[in-house]
């Protein structure tokens, strides 16, 4: 090719300026759109809320609709073993053995693979990110890409996460996973895009028996506060000092 140095420089400059301007424009569009979608803008004031979640294990029937709804709502891949919420089944056999399982995170429900006469006690336990008040995942993130919002939700900044997976190691509940598409950590957001619009998280809405409840801890009349006032509740692994905001009714000692 026959290009003079002058032409080459001119062309090069155009490419560089074009690329820079292009990225800047795209970036501004992306930031604007994600800001309006995720951050509390408009009427929603994140200072006015503090979210909490209650799981009534006595009601759960293990249908797995919650886990299904979650994957649909949040584009969590169905063909990968990654879950923002799942249901565990605990079965104490007559010989004393405890069997725990959660096949495919309960998305397809459960199969009765042990005859009923061999089972002494059985129950289901829905699991989800505890959105801890003292979240170890936030503590260990080396760049601050995961954070707690003012309304008490632990989120991941996908544009900032470096993908070191330290938070996945740091979560005692196995609530985090690696998003193979975004190449970042990922987790339950309590459907932040829904709750900031006054809707319920998808899993809560999908539950046919009301085993999952969601509400505002700052509102004394919320369903969450009513339950916390009346019921005897517990949280998962309280000894770790993580201060979960997912409260359990009827938590068995086998559940970790």
């Amino acid at each position, binding site marked *: 090719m026959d290009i003079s140095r002058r032409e080459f420089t001119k062309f090069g400059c155009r490419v560089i300026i074009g690329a820079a301007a292009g990225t800047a424009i795209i970036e501004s569009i992306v930031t604007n759109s994600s800001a309006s979608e995720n951050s509390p803008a408009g009427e929603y004031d994140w200072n006015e809320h503090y979210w909490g979640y209650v799981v009534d294990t006595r009601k759960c029937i293990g249908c797995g609709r919650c886990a299904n709804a979650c994957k649909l709502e949040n584009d969590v891949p169905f063909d990968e073993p990654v879950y923002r919420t799942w249901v565990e089944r605990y079965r104490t056999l007559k010989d004393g053995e405890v069997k725990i399982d959660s096949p495919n995170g309960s998305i397809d429900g459960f199969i009765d693979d042990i005859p009923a006469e061999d089972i002494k006690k059985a129950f289901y336990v829905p*699991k989800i990110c505890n959105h801890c008040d003292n979240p170890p995942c936030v503590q260990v993130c080396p760049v601050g890409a995961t954070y707690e919002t003012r309304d008490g939700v632990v989120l991941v900044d996908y544009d900032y996460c470096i993908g070191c997976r330290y938070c*996945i190691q740091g979560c005692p509940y196995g609530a985090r996973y690696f998003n193979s598409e975004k190449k970042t950590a990922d987790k339950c957001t309590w459907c932040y895009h829904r709750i900031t619009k006054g809707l319920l998280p998808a899993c809560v809405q999908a539950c046919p028996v009301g085993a999952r409840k969601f509400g505002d801890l700052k509102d004394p009349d919320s369903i969450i506060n009513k339950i916390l006032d009346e019921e005897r509740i517990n949280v998962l692994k309280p000894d770790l000092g993580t201060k979960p905001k997912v409260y359990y009714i009827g938590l068995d000692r086998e559940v970790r």
Partner: protein
Amino acid sequence: MMENLIWGYIYPNEAEIQWSILIVLYPYITGLVAGAFIASSLYHVFGKKEVKPVARFALLTALSFLLVAMMPLLAHLGHPERGIEIMFTPHLTSAMSGFGYIYSFYLIVVVLEIWLSFREDIVKLALNSKGWKELLYSALALFSYDISEKALHDDEKLAKKLAIIGIPSAAFLHGYVGFIFGGIKANPWWSTPLMPLIFLMSAIVSGIALLILLYIASMKLRKHAIDHKCLQSLAHYLWIFLILDVVLELLEIISMKYESLEEIEIINRLLSEKIAFTFYGVQLTMGIFIPFILLLLAGIMKNRQTLKMIMISVSSILVVIGVFAMRWNVVIGGQEISKSLSGTLTYVPVFFSREGVLPAIIILVIPFIILRVVTYILPPWKDMEEESE
């Protein structure tokens, strides 16, 4: 296939092991760096004349491994291009956020230390060579050619001060790697305040052993006699640090078993089924007890230099392998137990993949190539060869 690798109940998200063999390599390499540096400071700081022959060589070894220490991490990150954010926007409650700073600081200390201890040679090489070599060495000398007695004395004083800073930073560099694991309360196999100390002791052990091996190998390659006093002295330090290392490692296991907290069942399962061979076999028996006895014998034997040398080399090889097994048992072992404390899973290394065995081997070979290049530019052989004559 998957089903056979899993026993009991693991949380659904745990099916995939997050930290692969590359993350085993990272503490292994930084450990070798810290250990080699501390071996060199036995002379530079503590004035142990016996190890003078390898003191500068140890610094070059530390540098060669330090230069690749970051590679396994970068290869592992989901977004390597964002890795630099650790330095720009460190989140200070994270043990990991200190990495960039500690690493850079330590790199500067090692480079300065090397420069000061090689400055006289660099200046002489600059004055006695022609062409590109003259340019290279002049640049390395920073175009300052003062090698008067006073200047060299000042160098030495400064080098000693630097090495004094270097010891805590080497200890910090590696102790902090231990804290990355030790500070994770979610994982009962990692969460212990002993972890930084265990990492540090095993680092020193692996660094000295590597230095012994490299020393013997380079003397054999250069067909030069080995300074047995130096070797004996290194072996002696290796032995002492092995004792400290094994005391801490056993203390951890014994107190875990003695206290028998909630997690003891899964820890016992890990030790008896998942990592029994790599823990009891490789890490403790092969990597500590056998070298301990061999080094003890080599220490009390009179004469028979060749036999002693063989015993010391065998011990060093075993130690280097044993410490790798220790890193493996921590990093992989910790991930093979479920945080539900009710199940285990198995890590199956892949050979060809970004986080596979092949990149791990490549990353482990590079430091030796770097060391070859660095020792070509800054030959440390003079100290190693004149002493033995």
